[in-house]
């Protein structure tokens, strides 16, 4: 039997773990994707291939692999994160960061490179020129974050393996769905699934609003410091 307390805990944990994993993935993936798009260095092709392959990593495989490393007798067993939310965040970052990286790279690739040139010709430093291109790619960058969040919030295999799906400890909404189905409660299971969908909806509405143009007023205020 699953109590309402267990449900609230799973909901809260899902949000915290996936939210944190998405933020960390964005902090890794956006700079890395930008680096891959805007700068040339040796081995760049190989890095891109790895990133693209990791975008299709099977979650259970990542789960098992991470588990083998962080389990008590594993190489990083001493840090003691196995069966904790920290392990779940780690495994989700491994799943989401390549997606954010790949999408960031792809969306910067379609920005007219001459915009960077135009920025530099107006006195921008190299970094400032890259920022101009990132601003042009903003819808793509937000899509990258949406895709990253989408991957981890819906994920069940990897978090079960490293988190253990312990009730009121490491259960997420997805692991709860699995449990409820196994316990012969498909109705409740679907209900939890609906909550999961609702979260995805809310997060996407929020991110899509960011993706759209900010109000005219706001933009003008930001760039010229006044509103006419």
């Amino acid at each position, binding site marked *: 039997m699953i109590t309402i307390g267990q449900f609230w805990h799973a909901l809260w944990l899902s949000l915290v773990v996936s939210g944190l994993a998405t933020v960390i993935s964005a902090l890794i993936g956006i700079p890395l994707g930008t680096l891959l798009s805007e700068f040339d260095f040796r081995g760049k092709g190989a890095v891109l291939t790895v990133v693209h392959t990791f975008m299709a990593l099977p979650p259970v495989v990542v789960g098992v692999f991470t588990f083998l490393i962080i389990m008590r007798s594993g190489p990083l067993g001493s840090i003691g994160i196995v069966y904790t939310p920290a392990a779940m965040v780690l495994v989700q970052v491994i799943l989401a960061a390549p997606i954010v990286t790949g999408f960031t790279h792809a969306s910067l690739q379609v920005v*007219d490179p*001459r*915009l960077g*040139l*135009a*920025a*530099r*010709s*107006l*006195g*921008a*430093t190299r970094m*400032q020129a890259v920022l*101009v291109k990132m*601003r*042009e790619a*903003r819808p793509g960058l937000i899509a990258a974050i949406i895709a990253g969040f989408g991957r981890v919030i819906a994920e069940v295999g990897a978090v079960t393996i490293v988190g253990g799906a312990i009730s009121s400890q490491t259960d997420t909404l997805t692991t709860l769905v699995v449990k409820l189905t196994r316990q012969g409660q498909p109705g409740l299971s679907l209900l939890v699934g609906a909550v999961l969908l609702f979260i995805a909806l809310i997060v996407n509405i929020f991110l899509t609003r960011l993706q759209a*143009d900010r109000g*005219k007023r706001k*933009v*003008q205020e*930001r*760039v*010229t*410091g*006044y509103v*006419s």
Partner: protein
Amino acid sequence: MERLEVQQGEVLAVLGPSGSGKSVLLRTLNLLERPSGGTVRFYGQDVTGLEGRERTAVTRRMAMVFQDPLLFHGTVAGNVAYGLKVRKVAAEERAGRVANMLAGVGLGDRSGAYVQSLSGGEAQRVAVARALVIEPEVLLLDEPFANLDAPTRHTLQEETRDILRDRGMTAVFVTHDQDEASRMGDRILVLHDGSIAQEGGAREIFYRPATEFVARFVGMSNLYEGLVEACEEGLARVSVQGRGLFAVAEIDCGEKVKVGIRPEDVTLVPADEVDRPTSSMNSFTGKVTDVEARGPVARVTVACPFPLVAAITTRSLDELEIAGGAEIGVRFKATALVVFGEAE
């Protein structure tokens, strides 16, 4: 080694066909590209291959306008403010300068408009304003009006020229259009295959082209090989396909040369008037072989026996009742016939 120099306060027009290296030249001057050889000097200081902060310090004294507006996503004001923002100009001053600049280019009421809503002419006007607002010491313009329709282009050429002159701004204006080059530049430099083919004032380039390439490029479409038969006191007689043509030139007898004449310098008169006294030393008759009327200007080809093209107004064409096969008088001055270089 070839040397290109732009004086302070001067507008240098760089004229050349596609692929002659015009854009590369500008990007090199703007330190966006590193030259494979040679040096870039700015106020005498070697700035070739500068990097990082030093490079930025130099490039911040210049600005560039491209063939496409290349506006950033956002509003007109946001774009014009960009160069000031990266220079950390305070918000209040920035707003004032942006507003003044936009009013100056007739876009005062479009300040809050999104760039997607602008017409081609407006967008390029914003691009020019975005560069000018910085008050750069050197403005680099890479065929900025090439993609605009003729009336808009002319308006923008005039406005930009006035702004450059008023402010005494140093500028390098790249174009493939000879009219634009003569309109915008105090001086013209013709580029051919990455080398300087000629440098000088518009008159010099158009009427005294240094090479056959320059002659063709600036519209001197009548070009012939000839032999210098006589030359005294700066007046040469050059034989072109058996006809002696007079040219004002200091050149040795017996030399093989190229001669050229602009179609606009050839006058057509009725055949029976060709013997009347005139200041044109070259005066003879020929048969009309082709008439091509293009808008207000007509091009008439006359067999002299070499094909000579004359550009006359369509009105003159009608008045002279010129038709294919008719006999017509041809006149041009000895000063109009340009002798340049040796025939190959």
